[in-house]
């Protein structure tokens, strides 16, 4: 699956199937600081992601 990341913007390829929780862990990303979006929809930690899915991992932290 294609995973889009920010800060800096980049795309990585990850092998499915994989749970959201495990994807974040594998990329060393903190759950509380990110949202996972599949296509246009938010998904929860236990959602299974498959090859061919378009995934965006969006950081939620801003400077303020």
């Amino acid at each position: 699956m294609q995973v889009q990341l920010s800060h800096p913007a980049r795309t990585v390829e990850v092998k499915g199937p994989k749970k959201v929780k495990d994807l974040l862990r594998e990329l060393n990303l903190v759950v509380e600081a990110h949202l996972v979006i599949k296509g246009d929809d938010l998904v929860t930690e236990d959602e299974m992601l498959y090859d061919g899915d378009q995934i965006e991992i969006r950081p939620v932290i801003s400077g303020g």
Partner: protein
Amino acid sequence: MNCTKCKTKAVIDLPRHNAAFCKGCFNGFVHDQVARAIKSEWMFGKDERILVAVSGGKDSLALWNILLTLGYRADGLYVDLGIGAYSEQSHTKVTKFAEAVAASHGATLHLHTVEQEAGAGIKELAQLIHRPTCSTCGTIKRYQFNRVAIEQQYDVMATGHNLDDEAARLLGNVLHWQEEYLDKQGPSLPASVAGFAKKVKPLYRLSERELAAYAVLNRIDYIVEECPMAKGSKMLQYKEVLNRLETESPGTKQTFYWGFLEKQKKKQPTATTMTEKDRAVLHPCASCSQPTTAEVCSYCKMMARAKTVIPR
């Protein structure tokens, strides 16, 4: 994972509340948290006029959206800081939201452009007067929000500060034992003296992740990109540490900040003592008459310096 409330498919899990919600129930949760904040901290009523400080980021646009949805009279104020493409993009997002959403509620958007008044954008300005960009930015935003609120006779000024912002600020203040700042860290500050608007933070019960989720779910188009000036800032470091703790022990941030608020409430400083303190030290700036502890306020000092170095 299913929604804790209605058992349909959940779109977000909230470990700190031991819950998961579908879109509808999550919106209900968010609106409820804001309504609770407004009520418990005596922020404002339905007939009062609110000025929302909007930046184009998720928090302030979500706040504006929530207040309008809940039926409050809320207008927006955008301060264009003149930080190149970042400011252009955030300005566009704010304008779009104002036209597509706020206008249908009868709400309007005010605009202040730093470059127009100071003769330079925030970054150049900070360099020219030899001050850190973020503190220059802070001074200008605080000043302009207050000025517009007073001039346009708003009853209260609302900012999009969330649980993460407040917990990170509290952590910074505690790490450096800046106790003098703790009194002002509540979510509702009274208009202590003439010339100062009342300031409130209706999102202090919601985390940054929850607000980002609210924006995504409700198709609020916000600027995801980080302010280029804030990169590597202390605030971001504190937030990162807190989020690591939160992921391991859900509820850490709220226990920290809400616990602090509880303690402050029990101890004092009540609104009256804070007001008394302010009245003792504040008087009108000799130049612009906004309240200040000095002869001339820090904003006017900054603008005076800018005038000597920026050719107009």
